[in-house]
């Protein structure tokens, strides 16, 4: 399922049957092809402006996954760099980083996101900064903890005794040993960023029109629940499928990388 979504996101312009933003007002609110009044031209029906729902869902995959991956990578880089440095240097720097981690953990992130949007206005760059900051604290906490336990190992001590530089110890002996848990955490982080993006877009302050976003599609479809339920249900199902498949992938990865956790 995840592969299918990634494929849809990558090949969106090639596989989507229609332009996701072009409006055909004469074919507004057409039901899905399963319905007796539906047509095979619009497999998942059309919305209130006559746009093809299937094409919009396919392009929405691109937006959701793109923003999700961007946020995940930025969070991973910022968080793990700070976490590794904190665990390795200790002292004041570590205290400051861990305090910032605590602050971010203590506050619901969406509140800070809403405050930022109120100040800077809703736009794609603001959204990208928000998703980049979301979740760095998880990476920082895990990587610091892993560094602290890894530096206790004999091989790190041996490298130090052999005169290896700090940079070499971090890159050659510590980073390879903490990669696995960080990858697992990254998959979890990806689902929460996708949910954050869809929530902000649902509220009308995330991805801005005419860009297709699943959250926004649900918000628009909400007004037509009585007459055109598919407008809200189809993108909602897409969000659930993508988060479920990424979570399953993350669970599988965790079990594969750490067999002691299996079944927990």
């Amino acid at each position, binding site marked *: 399922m995840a592969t299918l979504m990634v494929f849809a996101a990558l090949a969106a312009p090639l596989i989507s049957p229609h332009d996701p933003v072009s409006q055909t007002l004469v074919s507004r609110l057409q039901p899905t092809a399963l319905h007796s009044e539906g047509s095979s031209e619009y497999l998942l029906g059309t919305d209130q402006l006559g746009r093809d729902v299937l094409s919009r869902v396919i392009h929405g995959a691109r937006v959701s996954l793109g923003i999700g991956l961007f946020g995940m990578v930025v969070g991973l880089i910022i968080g793990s760099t700070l976490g590794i440095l904190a665990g390795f240097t200790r002292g004041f720097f570590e205290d400051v980083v861990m305090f910032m981690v605590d602050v971010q953990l203590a506050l619901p992130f969406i509140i800070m996101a809403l405050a930022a949007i109120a100040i*800077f206005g809703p736009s794609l760059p603001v959204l990208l900064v928000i998703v980049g900051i979301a979740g760095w604290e998880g990476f920082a906490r895990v990587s610091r903890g892993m560094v602290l336990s890894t530096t206790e190992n004999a091989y790190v001590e041996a490298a130090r005794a052999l005169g290896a530089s700090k940079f070499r110890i971090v890159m050659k002996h510590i980073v390879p040993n903490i990669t696995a848990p960080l990858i697992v955490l990254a998959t979890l982080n990806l689902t929460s960023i996708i949910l954050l993006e*869809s929530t902000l877009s649902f509220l009308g302050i995330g991805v801005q029109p005419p860009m297709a976003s699943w959250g926004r599609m*649900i918000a628009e479809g*909400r007004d037509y629940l009585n007459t055109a339920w598919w407008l809200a249900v189809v993108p*909602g199902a897409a969000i659930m499928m993508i988060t479920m498949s990424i979570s399953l992938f993350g669970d599988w990865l965790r079990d594969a990388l750490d067999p002691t956790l299996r079944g927990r």
Partner: protein
Amino acid sequence: MLQFTLRRFIRGLLTLWVVVTLVFFGLRLSGDPVFLMLGDEASPEAITALRSQLGLDEPLPVQYLRYFQTVAQGDFGNSLRERRPVTEIVAERLPATAELAAAAIMISIVFGIPMGIFAALRRNTAIDRGLMAVAFFGQSAPGFFIGIMLILVFSMQLQILPSSGRGTWQHLLMPAIALSTYGVASLARLTRSATLEVLSKDYVRTARAKGLKESVVQMRHVLRNAAIPVITVLGLQIGLAISGSIVIETVFAWPGMGRLIIGAVSNRDYPVIQMAVLLIAVSVVTINFIIDILYGVIDPRIRYR
């Protein structure tokens, strides 16, 4: 214990200090806060008056200290849209959000914890797998989508529950369920793994070996110890319920803080956002502080870490 409490208290205060500082600099980063507070159509006289009232003609460090003073006094100014004190507007909206969040947390506890215990005690059976599949589903679905599905089924098709507003328990039911789905799911999964962890401990084997009844082993040895990680996560759940209510209130037109905040973000009603952010920060930090103290009482080892 006193030292532990004091340490946690100072940590909470420091967190709030960071939030207030972020709001202060955020306000100034965005340009002239006076324009944000008065809107674009303000007269030059009003701008000058507010600028000197807020002390914006003074040096930044003085402004910073003065800002703390006004915040501590609870003076958040007037809403740009409604032209009356923000504190008054927030006071009207707060009970609705508290009601919704409390109902959602109750549902999370009442359903999530027993689901997890039940699944763990019947590990690898169809019941376990079924319950965990439900939990997995609940964790993957966005709350606002669950809300819309509930409206579609119970308000539009079956027409047995109202789709919006506040007043009776029927109004509360769907928003509370939508808000609690994630909480039920994550509490169920966490309780299950915490219970499984304890079940594999030596003291449980000892308790069984000395011939204690299974119910005694479960109540006295397993559940008590499994409660520790669950309580910590409960603190997080409360924070999640408060932040989740923002979007759920929008779905169900629930007249609480969430809708107030979203309206304020769209209108850039800065005084309202400022108070809402600080109020939510204070409540979440206070709840986390209480949970930390409880945690220290239940598990004395924590105090010495």
